[in-house]
Structure formats: C-alpha cells, structure tokens
C-alpha cells in the first residue's frame, strides 16, 4: 500500500517550483508563492484606491471629484479580488469559511474575515450614499418608460432593490446623504489602513523568518499600499478618459451623441488637473514608503545580527537585480524623477504610474519570495521558479496564469459594476 501511495504522492506542495541549493531542511519549500505575492498587492490596491477617494470625501479636495468617484467604484471592484489569491492558495479552499466560523484570535489571519467584511460594508455604504439619488432617478425614469425591454425590466428591478425603499430626494435628504458619506469615508480611512497594515503584520510577526520580522512591516505595507492604489487609479482614470475622448471625437457612444456631452477639450482639461494633483499625493506617499524601506535595510546592515550573513547574500548578491534594479531603480527612482522633474505632463505621469505599480509588485515579490529564499538553517538557499505552462491545477493556480486571472478580475468586475454605478456622466452627485 505504501508503495502505491509513494507512486502517486511523490510531488509535495512547493516541490514543483522550488530549487534547493546547499543545505536546506528536508521540509522546507517555497510554500507561499505567487498568490501570496498577489494578496498584499491586491489588498494594497483596494486600500490605496479608497484612500484616494477619501481625499475628496473627507478633506474636500474639490479638484479630485471625478477621480474620487472613480476610485471608490474601482476599490469596490477590487474588493472581492483581495480574497481571491488567498482562496486560490489554500490547500483546502472549501474549508476557507472556517476562518469565519471558528476564528482563532491569536492568529493574525483570523481577523481577516472581520476586518475585510467591516471594510466591505463601509465601502458599500459609502457607494450607496453616493449613488442613492442615481438609483432613485434611474428607477423613476425606467418606471415611466413605455415599452420596457427585458433588459430595462431587469435594470428596473435592480435599481428598485438598490434604493432600499429610500426614495426621498428632497434637499434635506440629499444633504443628510452628504454628511453621512463624509462620516463613512472618515471611518473608512483607518479601517482601510488597518486592512492593509495587518496584511503587513501577517508577515512582520513571523518570528521564524529573519527577513520578515520587523515592526516596520505594517507601516511599510500601508505606505506602499497607498502608493500602488493611487497609481492604479491614475492609470485607469487616464485610460478611461482616453477611451471617452476617443468616443467623444467620433460620437461613438450614446452619451457622446447627446447635446450635453463634454467636448474633447473639456475632458482634456479635467484629466490634466486631476491627474497632476493626484500624482502629488502619490509622490508624498512614495517618499514615506521609500524612507521606511531604506531605513529597514540600513538598520539590518548596521546592526548585523546573526541572520545578516545570509540576508546579505540574498539581498546583495542573489536577489540584487530584483531588489536594486527592478524594484528600487525602475520601480521607484525612475518614476520618482519622472514625476518630480519640472514640465510634467499627463503622459509622463501615466508612464510613471505604470512603473510605480511594477515597483510595488516587485517589493511584494521580494518580500514574500525573498523571505523564503534562504533556509532556516542559514546554510542554504531556495530559488523560486514561477510555473508558466500549467501542468495541473496546482501549477495553474500557483503559476503565471493564476496570477494573471487575479490581476484581470477587477477590470471585468469594474465593467459590470459600472453598468449599475456609472462613474462618469452623473449630473447631481458628489
């Protein structure tokens, strides 16, 4: 019987993508692979997008109005995706619900369900307050329409449900919505930071791992989360605006043919102002994130505790290209210069945001994979080989295509959510 089992079960989880060098303990593999890189990256985007939208809702930075609404809807589309990599990574995905059923509160992960659901309900509430007027108006318009098509009827049902029966559109009611919205956004900022800070805590509190264990980890994660979230929002906002400009020029869409449709010049002006202002915030958070990361590195190098010998080999030799070239130079220094040098344009900023996103991704990669690049024996190394061509379900979900699926999902979700919660073309809203 044992022989039979041996025939079938030779492949251990992690063996497919781990190469061991020198002395690595028998049970050591890169257990946390690309999906665990995606997890903090995606949660970071959620938190960052929300913080950007809150700049308008809480601090009333009027110029960010359009991009704020965009970020709020986008952070809602990103929400389910923050959970996806975790589910794909679990060896027993059907037991994932156990985290909510029997949370074991000494574990950092156990809070995930609670923090995540709190945050999700805050974003949903805020969205509802922003869009309530739209729901009521749309429902009324569809109700009044003669000859409703099947789609119209479905939308009518959706909008009717979404109003939750609150159909009061008086001035006082709208004002009340505004105030509640500000309050929700205010509560949302610390919760968003907590959501991501604790993702950093998950890593920072693993005392067995010499690279991860630092109290700076949660703070570093929050700052880089905001950086990546703002960068993604700018990038997507510019892309969507470019598509709108393209449509407005050729009158390709229904809204573009209406008399009140914005002209290309108007779209251009709004885009320019919002992008440049948002990129200022991006710069501030980048400075904070970089300072902390470099501080951590310098501190390790200066104190030279027991683990430094092996960490130095990983950071300065084996992962040098990934850390100093891909992450710090291409992902941080270059976009920083692009955004801070005078004469900045939308195009240059957009290109910079792509590099920033890449830089934050590489930071997550270097933390998660880099932390497993050396053996607990401090006498050997492990190298990670991302599975590209999937051979089975496991190499699919923990490989390139699994990661790409996670990365693509928010955009698909955004497309559908945008049908019900239109980001652009709303007259009376905030």
């Amino acid at each position: 019987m044992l022989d039979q089992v041996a025939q079938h079960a030779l492949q251990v989880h992690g063996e497919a993508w781990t190469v061991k060098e020198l002395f690595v303990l028998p049970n050591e593999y890169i257990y946390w692979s690309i999906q665990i890189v995606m997890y903090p990256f995606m949660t970071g985007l959620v938190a960052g997008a929300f913080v950007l939208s809150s700049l308008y809702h809480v601090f009333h930075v009027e110029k960010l109005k359009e991009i704020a609404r965009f970020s709020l809807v986008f952070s809602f589309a990103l929400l389910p995706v923050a959970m996806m990599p975790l589910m794909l990574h679990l060896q027993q995905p059907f037991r994932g619900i156990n985290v909510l059923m029997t949370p074991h509160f000494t574990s950092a992960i156990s809070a995930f369900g609670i923090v995540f659901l709190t945050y999700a309900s805050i974003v949903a509430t805020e969205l509802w307050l922003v869009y309530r007027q739209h729901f009521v108006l749309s429902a009324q318009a569809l109700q009044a329409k003669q000859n409703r098509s099947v789609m119209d009827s479905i939308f009518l049902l959706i909008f009717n449900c979404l109003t939750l029966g609150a159909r009061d559109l008086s001035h006082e009611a709208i004002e009340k919505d505004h105030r509640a919205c500000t309050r929700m956004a205010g509560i949302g900022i610390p919760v968003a930071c907590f959501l991501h800070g604790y993702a950093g805590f998950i890593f920072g509190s693993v005392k067995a791992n010499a690279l991860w264990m630092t109290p700076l980890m949660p703070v570093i994660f929050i700052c880089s989360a905001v950086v990546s979230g703002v960068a993604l929002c700018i990038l997507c906002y510019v892309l969507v605006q470019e598509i709108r400009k393209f449509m407005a020029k050729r009158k390709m869409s229904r809204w573009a043919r209406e008399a009140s449709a914005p002209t290309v010049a108007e779209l251009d002006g709004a885009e320019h102002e919002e992008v440049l202002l948002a990129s200022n915030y991006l710069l501030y958070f980048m400075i904070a994130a970089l300072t902390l990361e470099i501080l951590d590195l310098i501190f390790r190098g200066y104190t030279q505790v027991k683990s430094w010998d092996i960490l130095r080999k990983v950071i300065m030799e084996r992962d040098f290209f990934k850390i100093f070239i891909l992450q710090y130079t291409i992902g941080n220094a270059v976009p920083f210069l692009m955004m801070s040098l005078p004469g900045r344009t939308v195009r240059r900023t957009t290109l910079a945001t792509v590099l920033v996103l890449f830089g934050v991704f590489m930071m997550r990669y270097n933390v998660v994979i880099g932390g497993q690049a050396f053996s607990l024996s401090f006498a050997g190394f492990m190298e990670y080989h991302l599975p590209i061509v999937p051979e089975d379900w496991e190499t699919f979900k923990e490989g390139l295509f699994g990661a790409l699926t996670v990365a693509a999902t928010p955009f698909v979700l955004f497309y559908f959510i945008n049908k019900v919660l239109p980001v652009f073309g709303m007259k009376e809203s905030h």
Partner: protein
Amino acid sequence: MKRRDFIKNCIVVIAGASVPLSALVMVDPKKVLAANPEIQWAFLIDTTKCVGCGFCVKACKTENDIPFNANITRTWVERYVFTMDDQRYIDSPKGALYGFTDSRVDLGMGEFKEIDPRNVGKAFFVPKLCNHCATPPCTQVCPVGATYKTDDGVVLVDRTWCIGCGYCIMACPYAARYFHPTLKVADKCTFCYHRITKGLETACVNACPFGARKMCNIHDTNDRNTQVILRERVGVLKDDFGTKPQAFYIGLAQEVR
C-alpha cells in the same frame, strides 16, 4: 410596558438564567482531548550515539503512513562535517530516509563533495523532529485553531479542520511542518500520540538501535531520562525564538541550527 418594568424583567431573566448557565464550563479542546494531563512529554536526544542509520525516519514514515518516497518527513537526521580549514558542510539526503550510505556530502542541485577524511576536524549526526514547544508559534498563528497543544504537552493537527493556509509551516522556526502530499493539510510529528497514550514508545525511539532517542515524562523525576534532562547539561535548538522547545539534546554543537 413601562421602561422601569422592562428593566426589572430583564434583571430577573438575567439573574434566573445565570444560575444554570454557570454550571456550564467552556469546552477547551486542550483539556478534553488530553489523554493524561498529569503527564508532560519531553524528548531526549543523545547526538553522541547517533550514527545516521535512518531507521528512525523509516519507522516514522511507516508507522504514521507518510508517503514513503515523498520529500517530506516528520523526523530527519542531519550530518555535520567540519574541516580543519574551517569549512562547514551539512546535508540530509531525503531526510536520511536511507541513511548516510554515501561518504560524499550532498550540496544540492545534484552536486556532491568528497571530503578528505584526514582533513575532517569533527563530524556528527543530529536527529531532528518537532520540538513540541511549550510556547509553540505554530498553534498561535493557526487562523482556525486546527492545531493545538494538548495538556500533556504534544502539539497536534486536526486534519478535518485545517484549511491548508501554510501559516503554521511559515511560523515554525524548525521546519518541522509540511503539507501532507495526499491529505493536503499541515502535518507534523505527533510524538506518535496514538502509541504513547497506550503506554508504547514512539516509532522512532523504538527503531533506534543505539538508544540515541528517548522519551520521558518531565514531571516524573524517577524516570532515568527525566533525570538526565534535569541533572545533566542539555541544550535545545534555537532558544532565542522563545519557543521553549521540549526536545533536549546531549552534546549539541553551537553550529547546529
């Protein structure tokens, strides 16, 4: 109903309910599942007696139905070779499942190193297994409480409840945990809980031909092995993590991590 009445009724209900409820005790799996709470299991390893035959690894895999050839193991043996020119070589091919039959040191990635015996300063074997720490980081981080420490001091995994997140594997400073290749849950040494609770020895202790592995109840001061732990100079692995390991080593070199 007036507010006063409402509050009055509430107090009566709470007072009445608290009497029967106080009879209930919170169910603690640690207490319920412990076979012998008065016992505190500990492990004693005499590194000076180990010859690296690997019988313990074989016995463990067979006894606990761990896929025999899969590259994971609940217990393993490491070989340390220190040369006179201050080079250190460590290996543990397949966790020493087949023993150390090759004099060359396995460097990984298919490379081997032949060491001139005249150049060897010191060389020894170190058997390893889960340390069943007094303050285990693995049970602390489990998000669903699927891994726990019994009252008799053994860290176990509930295979029906583990979600397979791997956090415990990451948290263990000794790499004693892994994913079971067929069951897809975290797995680790159980001190052969199914045997020791019936008065038997663990499979590895039983299989060791040289008495390098011993088990004892640390509360039983009449036990010979307990006396060794309490009276002799013994060491533990990586005590700087504050895990308070319960596997004690005789002749532990400081280079062993």
